[in-house]
């Protein structure tokens, strides 16, 4: 597995700009702005009464909101990365180099998929954690200027931080599992059509939907089977319901185990399994295609 790790490391070197350096720069800027605001006395929040009342809740919402932003960044980034990396070896004649190395096409493509679903989420997770620290510091500073119970905040927020961190990790894992077939679908096309993979991977299902609606109208649900399945499958399990709602309207701190339980029950694991099998087949077919192409 040393080879597999080395292949992932190579992907990291080539893509660390978007998934490591850029987030770090953004977070550094956030801290700098925070520092500047503090130094220029703008964090006097007599006006922000709510922070007085519920610093913990504000922290949790802040942490979750920023993480949600990073989550969207991740999903977009992973899709673009998948589309790009699966044909990157064709550029600058690099394919011949890879073909001269004793690693199968399948293994190389799998290492790119692993980068997409493990490494990159891992990097974004660190961005989320640092954002959490940011919010923690921000709320801490604001709360301390109003003289509210800082001691309580420090320890309560710390535990909350841990709970949210664990929950975010679960969300990341679940997202990657849930969206695996879509990532693989886009990636697989890139092997054949390169930069046209994103448009093409949207076009093909749309054509299928169109065909179904034109020729088989009325035989299925409104919009057709395909459309309904796809729109349903693209939606991540609604986290605002279930535990999300419960937590929001309570005064309890964020509870990872309750969240985890809720999440696990909300996910359609059968679909996840089908998705994984689909992804595997797509990557396998892509590797067989790649095995036969020597155009650079």
């Amino acid at each position, binding site marked *: 597995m040393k080879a597999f790790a*080395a*292949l992932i490391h190579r992907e990291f070197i080539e893509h660390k700009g978007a998934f490591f350096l850029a987030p770090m720069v953004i977070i550094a800027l956030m801290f700098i702005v925070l520092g500047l605001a503090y130094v220029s006395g703008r964090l006097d929040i007599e006006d922000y009464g709510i922070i007085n009342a519920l610093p913990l809740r504000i922290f949790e919402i802040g942490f979750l909101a920023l993480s949600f932003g990073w989550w969207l960044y991740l999903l977009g980034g992973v899709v673009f990365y998948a589309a790009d990396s699966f044909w990157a070896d064709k550029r*600058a004649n*690099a394919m*011949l180099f890879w073909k001269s190395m*004793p690693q199968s096409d399948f293994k190389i493509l799998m290492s790119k998929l692993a980068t997409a679903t493990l490494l990159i989420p891992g990097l974004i997770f660190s961005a989320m954690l640092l954002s959490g620290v940011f919010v923690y510091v921000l709320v801490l500073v604001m709360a301390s200027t109003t003289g509210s119970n800082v001691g309580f905040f420090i320890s309560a927020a710390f535990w909350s931080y841990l709970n949210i961190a664990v929950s975010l990790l679960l969300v990341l894992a679940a997202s990657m599992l849930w969206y695996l077939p879509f990532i693989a679908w886009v990636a697989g096309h890139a092997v054949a059509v390169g930069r046209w993979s994103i448009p093409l991977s949207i076009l093909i299902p749309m054509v299928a939907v169109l065909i179904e609606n034109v020729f088989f109208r009325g035989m299925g649900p409104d919009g057709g089977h395909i459309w309904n399945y796809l729109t349903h499958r693209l939606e991540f399990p609604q986290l605002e319901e279930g535990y999300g709602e419960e937590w929001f309207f309570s005064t309890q701190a964020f509870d990872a185990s309750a969240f985890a339980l809720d999440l696990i029950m909300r996910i359609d694991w059968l679909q996840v399994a089908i998705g994984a099998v689909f992804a595997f087949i797509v990557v396998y077919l892509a590797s067989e295609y790649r095995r036969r192409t020597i155009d650079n």
Partner: protein
Amino acid sequence: MTENAIITAHGLRKSFGRKEVLHGLDFEIPAGRIYGLVGHNGAGKTTTLNAILGLTDCEGTIRVLGEDPFARRAQLMENVAFISDVASLPRFLRVRELFALISNIHPNFSQEKARDFLTGTDIRMDAKIKHLSKGMIAQLHLAVVMAIDAKLLVLDEPTLGLDISYRKRFYRRLLEDYMTEERTLLITTHQVDEIEFMLSDIMFIRDGELILHMQMETVNEKFSQLVVTDPAKAERARGLRPVFEETRFGQTVLIFDGVDRAELTQLGQVSTPNVSDLFVALMQRPTANPSAA
């Protein structure tokens, strides 16, 4: 099938759509040889190499180190190294990152040897590969390949576009530091004159067929070149049925296949034809005439 044949091909055939590019090649390449593969662009040279390297699927059988290259490319590449004419190292890595990567994905690569082969060049370990000149990338790629303990080395036009000092250094390095009795080398090049004395065997490929496959020793015994200045003698020479004739600077150069040199020495200066002249001569023959070593 010879015991120690590194490559064997029987009825190797390849078509692209309706066009057949290889017409059933048969050949065996024994171990420890330095083979030259010469042919025009489009003659089937690259397709043959691709078949050997498992890059393309073909009809017929081909075995490299006993394996089917297309089915087992990844395993085969542990013992086969190749460089092609296109500088194809990953551009976004630094040299030291490339070495680290290859050490981890290639069981027979020695990072120490690779660094060693870079001494005396201007290539720094920290340099980004995309910033290296074409000649330096070729040197780097060669250093990588020579640091791989491979049984078969395939070079496809490795010196194309490189200046003469690089080319000389390239081949010198190969002969000095790499070639042992256990290694086999297969080279294709347009600049065949440069390497003709390095070769132990030669293959000419024309329109998907092997029109020559011989040891260089046999080539040197079988083919003769006669240079004649006297037109009368030139006429007599023509009577001996040369396979090739050309007049340059008032001299007539003729190439003979299988004619006794004793007969030729009376007519003019006899020598061994160089490979490129022989190539031109055989390419002009109306029929493909495969000769075995």
